[in-house]
């Protein structure tokens, strides 16, 4: 599939924003806050929202975590259109369980689920799972890659039409359409099949990001979407070209997104003054800057920069990391999206219902389609006839 003519836009709704809050404030967020953020994104026709898991209460953690999948599953029936990307850890969890939870998020959202593949990289988090230290990046990446491959096998282990409910033949399931995956790898041995239906999207959209404990250069080869940060346009172009060539060579569709902090103000100088204020506050509080490209200016100037990166083939789109989620996401929907629409760079309506449709990604072919039927039991004479 060719490169889309319009950019992909997503927003990271984790936390209350990427920059420090006034000192001494530590809000505990509930459903209402997330509902507002997801609704805002849906009104802006964004491709997806991204919700991370915050597993350790450290000195820099300002808010309590609510499990990302639980939260977005809660909001899925209420808010249509926008895709729902949730973090799910490959560390100390089971592919059989996690693949099923993700398939179910896809089920309850009508095909809008994405999986942000995460690995536990710090000791404090590992110590909640009986380990003293996290494993190294290479091991985490190897686990993630096998985990993704196994999950795709499990999603394929029921073909789309496995649930037959064929009264005449006596079949609830069509036993031709179920498959043991018999996976044996370095980290997992899984027989399968899974116990839930194939996700509406075939496979949940798999996102690999450069800030989630795995090496994108390796694990990106297994992803549908890569999210990353490059500090220069040239570096982003180089990475983009290489990643897309690699995907093309293996016959896959891939979307590559850059993380961006958009800082929009009525005038250029106001925008840069805000950037300086944010950086000063972060510095004062010992806060880590988000690993994202800051694009500051008027709404036209920010749209110019996004357009430049998009046309220069540095990215297929962007994941916005917002300084203050509540106020800045309103700006995205009210100001930036309309400007990009005027330029023909962004959709003016959702044209499909699934996240794959938004992203222009096709439904994956089922790797077991046409595989020989496995042994199944026939107790009725007509049961074996296809």
């Amino acid at each position: 599939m060719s490169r889309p003519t319009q950019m992909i836009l997503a927003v990271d709704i984790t936390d209350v924003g990427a920059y420090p809050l006034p000192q001494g404030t530590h809000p505990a967020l509930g459903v209402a806050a997330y509902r507002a953020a997801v609704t805002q994104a849906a009104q802006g026709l964004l491709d997806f929202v991204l919700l991370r898991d915050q597993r350790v209460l450290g000195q820099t953690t300002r808010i309590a975590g609510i499990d990302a999948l639980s939260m977005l599953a809660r909001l899925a029936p209420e808010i249509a259109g926008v895709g729902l990307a949730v973090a799910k850890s490959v560390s100390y969890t089971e592919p059989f369980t996690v693949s099923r939870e993700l398939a179910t998020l896809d089920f309850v959202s009508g095909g809008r689920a994405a999986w942000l593949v995460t690995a536990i990289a710090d000791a404090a988090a590992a110590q909640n799972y009986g380990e003293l230290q996290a494993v190294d990046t290479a091991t985490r990446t190897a686990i993630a890659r096998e985990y993704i491959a196994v999950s795709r096998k499990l999603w394929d282990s029921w073909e789309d039409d496995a649930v037959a409910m064929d009264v005449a033949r006596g079949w609830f399931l069509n036993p031709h359409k179920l498959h043991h995956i018999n996976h044996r790898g370095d980290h997992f041995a899984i027989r399968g099949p899974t116990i839930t239906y194939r996700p509406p999207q075939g496979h949940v959209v798999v996102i690999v990001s450069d800030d989630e404990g795995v090496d994108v250069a390796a694990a990106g080869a297994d992803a549908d979407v890569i999210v990353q940060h490059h500090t220069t346009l040239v570096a982003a172009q180089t990475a983009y070209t290489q990643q897309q060539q690699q995907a093309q060579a293996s016959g896959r569709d891939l979307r590559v997104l850059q993380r961006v902090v958009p800082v929009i103000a009525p005038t250029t100088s106001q925008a840069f003054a805000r950037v300086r204020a944010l950086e000063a506050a972060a510095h004062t509080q010992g806060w880590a800057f988000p690993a994202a490209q800051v694009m500051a200016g008027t709404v036209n100037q920010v749209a110019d920069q996004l357009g430049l990166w998009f046309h220069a083939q540095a990215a297929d789109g962007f994941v916005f990391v917002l300084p203050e989620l509540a106020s800045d996401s309103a700006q995205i929907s009210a100001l930036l999206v309309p400007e990009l629409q005027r330029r023909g760079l962004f959709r003016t309506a959702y044209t499909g219902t699934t996240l794959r449709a938004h992203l222009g990604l096709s439904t994956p072919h089922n790797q077991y389609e046409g595989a020989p039927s496995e042994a199944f039991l026939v107790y009725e004479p007509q049961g074996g006839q296809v």
Partner: protein
Amino acid sequence: MTPRKHAHIGVFFQSVGYGVVWRHPDYAKTDVFATYVRFAQSAERGLLDFVFFGEGLVVREHRDQFFGSIANGRPDSLALIPALAATTAHVGFVATVSSTYNQPFELARQLASIDHVTGGRMAWNVVTSFSNSLAKDSGGDQIAFNFSKEKHLAHATRYDRAREFVTLIKRLWDSWAPAAVVDGQIDATQVHAVNHHGTWFDVNGPLDVPRTPQGHPVIVQAGQSEDGRDLAARITDVVFSPHRDLAESKAYRDDIKQRMQAHGRDTTQLRVLPGLAVLVVPTEAEAQAKAAYYRELLFTPAFMRYLLSEQSGYDFATVDLDAPFPAIDTNNPDINGALIGRWMGLSHTKGLTVAQTIQQALPLWTIVGTPAQIADHIEQWLDAEACDGFLLTPSVFPNDLDDFVDLVIPELQRRGRFRTAYPGTTLRDSLGIAAPTWSHPVVEDAVPHGEEQR
């Protein structure tokens, strides 16, 4: 006069296994989200306490082969329930999740998160993933094969793990003191590590999710074995039991309460809910016809061969179902000789065919009756202190749940045996079970998490 005891009623979503009459023309497809929404909303219309979802960690095979006749497949409960919460306001949710194939920290944060996003309507049915089949092809090791393990854990070992698992999960839920969140703001000095180092788990904590609306999500268990009863008495708020005999159910409930007392727990804080396989008919005249129709849908020749073979381990593929029971060597170590022996005895004593025998041996319903008859049954059990209510297992969804909600619930309400409105917002409110009082998650050397970091 003391007020009449009210019933607590939950309903099981029958989707996998042989309780399902999926051949019924009205059977709602289980691979459609709207079916689950309708289920939860039907239960809420009836003011039921909760809806309950089971778990099975393998596609049930039969004699090592796929078998198309049994209903299979279900969404994951932990991902489904938050979505159902968006479509309901009061009904509670019980998810069955294995303590054998999960990690306590991961599950603690999921269950706590779901309690938050459902507004305090979450319950966890603790299972250790056993196989209920005595036949050779029991699913035990097949479950292990889906989790990179060679062998399923032995029964006693699973319960040992479960005890530590649940104790630890409760501590993690206590790692946020009630004062840790005030007016939506977090006070980190009220968040505590758990520093658990046990036989099975080493977990530092604290949990990354605040204390939940219910304090702890409700804990449910269905322990029948010695280990199971012990676990139930230690940890559970609600017990599911399989008893269809009033005296047995009463004895079971008394036993659990006695064990609770031995553990220093308040016995008023327990709800024992036996299964109620109920078929509601508007008038008694319709009972026989409806039951016969369901039997016909369920007991196809293929399905009877499956049941006979699955339960006994003997291959009934070619046995004549309309003849008397064949002579089978009950000493064969590869089969369940005791069960086959009982079936043979039943067939010979009563002169039954194989088909009639299996249908007699597997009573489908506790009660088939009119709303008044079912209400009588419920009142009798409540007054005998044999239970605190029931777990419904309707045969066909939506019909049989709707019949219960529309016909039996009003009858119970007229008799003063069931609520006419939800008493509060949480599942604990509906069950009448108090939120647990908070205790520091580390009993000795309690150090607030905030101080440790300095």
